[in-house]
């Protein structure tokens, strides 16, 4: 028989107020284990006496079966002197000292509440804001901790007697559910239509009968309150079916909503958002409905259904035009037999659809009436998402594209966009960490005490910051690109707020090296104002460190850090980097050879310009002949300017950016000339490669010259020679795109083998925006694993600049540990 021992299992995370202790007790009973469980200063402690094997099995089950809203961030196991227990008991809460305060992320509607929402006799039948102990908004409505009703914006809605009864009943599933409400006492769905619409309900095109016929259930509801909802809902449906755009207040801000079947509406939405090209996310009623339009793996299904309800990038199926009429204006009854294919205008050239499922009752109700629906953050271009009524009313007054605002009076305290994730390599990877994840911290292994606190400012694009206390890193929501003053103000406001909520007073500030980032300037000012040291971290080092942080990597790691732009320690633009990283330091072991490029932010968007700079570079070196270029390139009228700038060094920079190389190849191959949104050229290049794979085409063979030739050791001349040759031969551009993907993956393999030989490092981290490319990522993983490398990549934060703050935080932690 194995030896029995006593252990204390300390659990950090969202473990209080979510029914965690009763769950642990039940689980212990099932295992026949003896011991105790208690809340202590925000944590849960479990003390058990049993054999190591059984304890391990217990822990596995604990992680797997935990209640939905519970989130385990870190577990620590400590052996105690042996104790004999008679049974398993729940002990009363112990105040303890405040280790690491945690606030739950916003939780999407649970199955029980959804059932109640649809159950006619239920008092909360069709209550758009139905929630319970395990579901509902959290972070977006909180003012301060502890998370109690009076500390949230629900304090504007005093509970009615009925709700209070449930709230105080230990055995009710709404016992202490802070967001509890009903038709009687909760927020109401309200609406205001644009001045262009007559507001008398007589002008509603949906008649009562029609509404009932297509399942506008509110109308047949018995309670008068359900009927009150029915009027705004009928209006919303009416507007959507008629091809209008409405604004709908969600959990973390407003959405713009319209039908993905109506090309006219989607075009209008592009106008409204000033968003020419980017695909829109579509919300579907359920998994089955998504399957009509997208292909889906089991992992993707699980991710879609997870409590955060992220937008998941799914490969789109060919839309099959049904035999119906094109959706024109008309009544709801006519809607039934109109064409239900998602129009191209929604996704444009993307091969993915950002699909997601409803996260609140209101969305379920609306989708049931007229879903699926485009549900996109209500913001203009790169501005922050709109959260307040006044702002939305003002927009409607000035913008004829917006037909109505559907709102409620529950205030949103913190703006959160929907999160975006995908499945790669069979597991979820975050692309945009926001609603449903923020502000649950990441655990980054280190020995710092809780008094060691760090502010890591993040980057400039897809920005977020991190605040850490000991080993816990609280990653903020996504703020988008910090190009507008509004976004910058929001960033600062949320920093203050988060510091207050989690009582974090940083003793160290970390930011990027780039002198022009808002975050750099802000951090310099912040550090001097608070009189704390500042640490500047190279961008690509931070990317690699974000992977090291997530996977608790120790020792050296080969970082393959590929993106568009990062400021290098030599003042050049980096972006195709091989960095050997350890602790807080790194060595640059190789990079794409520098190429002189026409600079400035706008140039970074123009693939044809990157292409010209690359061509010029290789022609100058005698690696390529002018006559070899395809005719259209030789005749391009923009040459004299680009050449002139390069020859005379006017507004130029040295760049080793992999992102720009992708742009150059996409443009040269005639695939995409400009980035109308970030990464468009690279996305289109990947699409072409995907289409070649689908058609079973062979890649055009090509490879980088790797060696000592250039200062970076990676020369793209042979790539350009192969592409130029293929173009002259009229070879399918899909084959070129595929060949290029292969060449990049192969180059990574070769470089990694070389570094391993020299340094003995067998661990590799793939990171940076370029690795959002699924084909490149999977090819590279495959090649490196075949060589026996241990390969890591980002999971909980994006491989894009959204993860930069976590990498900075990690490096800051190491820096502090070394100082201590």
């Amino acid at each position: 028989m194995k030896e029995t021992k006593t252990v204390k299992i300390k659990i950090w995370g969202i473990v209080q107020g979510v029914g965690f202790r009763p769950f642990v007790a039940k689980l212990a009973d099932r295992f026949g284990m003896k011991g105790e469980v208690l809340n202590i200063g925000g944590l849960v402690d479990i003390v058990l006496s049993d054999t190591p094997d059984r304890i391990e099995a217990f822990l596995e089950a604990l992680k797997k079966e935990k209640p939905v809203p519970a989130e385990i961030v870190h577990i620590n196991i400590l052996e105690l002197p042996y104790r004999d227990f008679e049974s398993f008991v729940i002990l009363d809460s112990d105040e303890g000292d405040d280790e690491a305060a945690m606030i739950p992320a916003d939780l999407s509607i649970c199955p029980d509440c959804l059932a109640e929402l649809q159950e006619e006799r239920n008092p909360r039948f069709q209550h758009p804001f139905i929630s319970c102990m395990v579901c509902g908004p959290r972070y977006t409505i909180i003012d301060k901790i502890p998370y109690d009703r009076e500390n949230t914006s629900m304090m504007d809605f005093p509970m009615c007697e009925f709700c209070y009864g449930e709230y105080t009943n230990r055995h009710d599933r709404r016992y202490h559910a802070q967001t509890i409400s009903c038709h009687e006492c909760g927020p109401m769905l309200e609406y205001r239509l644009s001045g262009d619409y007559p507001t008398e309900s007589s002008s509603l095109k949906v008649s009562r009968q029609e509404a009932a016929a297509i399942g506008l259930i509110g109308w047949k509801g018995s309670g008068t309150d359900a009927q009150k909802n029915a009027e705004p809902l009928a209006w919303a449906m009416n507007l959507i079916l008629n091809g209008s755009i409405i604004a709908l207040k969600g959990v973390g801000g407003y959405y713009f909503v319209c039908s993905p079947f109506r090309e006219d509406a989607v075009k209008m939405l592009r106008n409204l958002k000033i968003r020419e090209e980017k695909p829109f996310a579509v919300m579907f009623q359920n998994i089955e409905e998504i399957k009509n339009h997208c292909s889906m793996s089991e992992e993707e299904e699980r991710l879609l259904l997870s409590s955060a309800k992220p937008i998941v990038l799914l490969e789109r199926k060919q839309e099959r035009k049904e035999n119906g009429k094109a959706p024109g204006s008309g009544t709801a009854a006519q809607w039934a037999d109109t064409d239900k294919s998602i129009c191209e205008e929604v996704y444009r050239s993307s091969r993915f659809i950002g699909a997601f499922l409803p996260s609140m009752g209101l969305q379920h109700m609306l989708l049931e009436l007229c879903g699926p629906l485009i549900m996109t953050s209500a913001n203009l271009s790169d501005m922050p998402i709109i959260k307040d009524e006044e702002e939305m009313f003002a927009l409607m007054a000035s913008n004829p594209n917006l037909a109505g605002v559907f709102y409620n009076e529950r205030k949103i305290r913190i703006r959160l966009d929907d999160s975006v994730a995908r499945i790669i390599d069979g597991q979820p990877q975050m692309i945009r960490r926001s609603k449903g994840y923020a502000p649950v911290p990441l655990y980054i292994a280190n020995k710092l005490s809780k008094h060691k606190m760090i502010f890591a400012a993040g980057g400039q694009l897809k920005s977020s910051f991190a605040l850490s206390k000991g080993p816990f890193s609280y990653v903020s929501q996504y703020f988008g690109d910090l190009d507008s003053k509004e976004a910058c103000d929001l960033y600062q406001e949320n920093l203050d707020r988060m510091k207050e909520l989690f009582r974090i007073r940083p003793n160290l500030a970390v930011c990027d090296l780039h002198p022009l980032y808002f975050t750099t300037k802000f951090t310099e000012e912040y550090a001097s104002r608070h009189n704390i040291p500042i640490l500047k971290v190279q961008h690509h080092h931070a990317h690699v460190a974000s992977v090291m942080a997530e996977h608790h990597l120790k020792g050296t790691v080969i970082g393959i850090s590929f993106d568009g732009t990062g400021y290098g320690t030599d003042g050049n633009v980096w972006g195709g980097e091989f960095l050997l990283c350890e602790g807080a330091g790194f060595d640059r072991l190789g990079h794409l050879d520098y190429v002189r490029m026409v600079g400035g932010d706008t140039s970074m968007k123009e693939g044809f310009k990157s292409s010209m700079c690359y061509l010029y570079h290789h022609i100058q070196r005698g690696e390529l002949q002018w006559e070899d270029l395809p005719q259209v390139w030789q005749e391009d009228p923009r040459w004299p300017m680009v050449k002139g700038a390069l020859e005379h060094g006017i507004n130029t920079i040295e760049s080793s950016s992999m992102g720009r190389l992708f742009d150059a190849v996409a443009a040269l191959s005639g695939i995409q000339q400009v980035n109308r949104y970030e990464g468009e050229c690279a996305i289109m290049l990947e699409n072409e490669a995907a289409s070649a794979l689908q058609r079973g085409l062979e890649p055009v063979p090509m490879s980088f010259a790797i060696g000592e030739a250039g200062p970076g050791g990676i020369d793209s001349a042979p790539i350009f020679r192969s592409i130029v040759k293929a173009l002259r031969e009229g070879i399918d551009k899909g084959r070129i795109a595929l060949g290029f993907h292969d060449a990049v993956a192969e180059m990574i393999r070769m470089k990694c083998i070389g570094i391993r030989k020299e340094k003995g490092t067998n661990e590799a981290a793939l990171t940076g925006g370029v690795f959002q490319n699924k084909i490149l990522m999977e090819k590279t993983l495959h090649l490196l694993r075949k060589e026996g490398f241990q390969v890591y990549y980002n999971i909980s934060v994006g491989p894009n600049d959204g993860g930069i703050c976590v990498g900075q935080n990690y490096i800051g932690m190491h820096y502090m540990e070394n100082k201590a």
Partner: protein
Amino acid sequence: MKINMSHGSGGKASAELMRNIFGKYFGNEVLDKMEDAAVLDLPGKIAYSTDSFVVTPVVFKGGDIGKLSVCGTVNDLLMLGAEPKYLTAGFILEEGLELDQLETIVASMAETAKKAGVVIVAGDTKVVEGRGGLFINTSGIGLIPEGRDVSAANCEQGDVILLSGTLGDHHACILSARMEIENNIASDCACLNDIPNTLFQHGIHVKTMRDVTRGGLATVLNEIADTSQCGVELREDDIPVHPEVMGFCDILGLDPLTMGNEGKMIVIVPEEDAEKALTLMKETAVGRDAVIIGKATAGKGVVMKTRIGGSRVVDVLYGEGLPRIC
């Protein structure tokens, strides 16, 4: 004929150069005395400024280094509310400079000075080894009439900011020439006397004036925001840029807001004077494209309202070509 070392020797060649070129064009009462220093009789408050000019090419569309060197210093004096009176001119000539070219430039300087109402009262010439280049330093003195108080520190919340015309012309013209690109972009190089003259004549309360030179509008406005402790708010739509200049900037990744000009200025006036000031500026040749571009606010720094209704922080230029986009 070309400049050689003997032209700087102080000997016969130097004297010939003085007589045939500088004397011929600059000749005036003070200079003709050939004393070691100019003696000036000046009453009251004096503005005094200096600037060196090193532009290549030395002759460009819309001007040359000579015109530039007069306009630059005259404009600097004007911006303090001064009436420019006297200039000095120092020449550094590189061996190999064509005498004809020098003559053209000196003639252009003299003509510009005459138009601007300034007299060149002292000068100096040196010859150095080189590749036929030419550098000019000018300094100037102006009188500030009683009661005038023009300063970057005077700008207050609510004041209106006017710009005298399109941005980026000079910079784009010089770059085009350096790149040997054929286009119609001409430098805006000009003396701005007419603008302050008409504004003061008509009793406009001019609080601040600045010429928009190196570093562009972004730099000037950030300096004003700093000095005056005000914010500055611009409207993107109101910033005038010549379409050809815009196209030029687009392809080179340049921002007209940080590009240099040599004949543009901003004027800051109280709100009640704004419309009148605009009308007066538009009546002058150098200010015919004048516009109101924004106002001083209670905020901090320079913020531009974009076309979509957002705001962008306008920073001073940092180095060349450095992008932030990932």
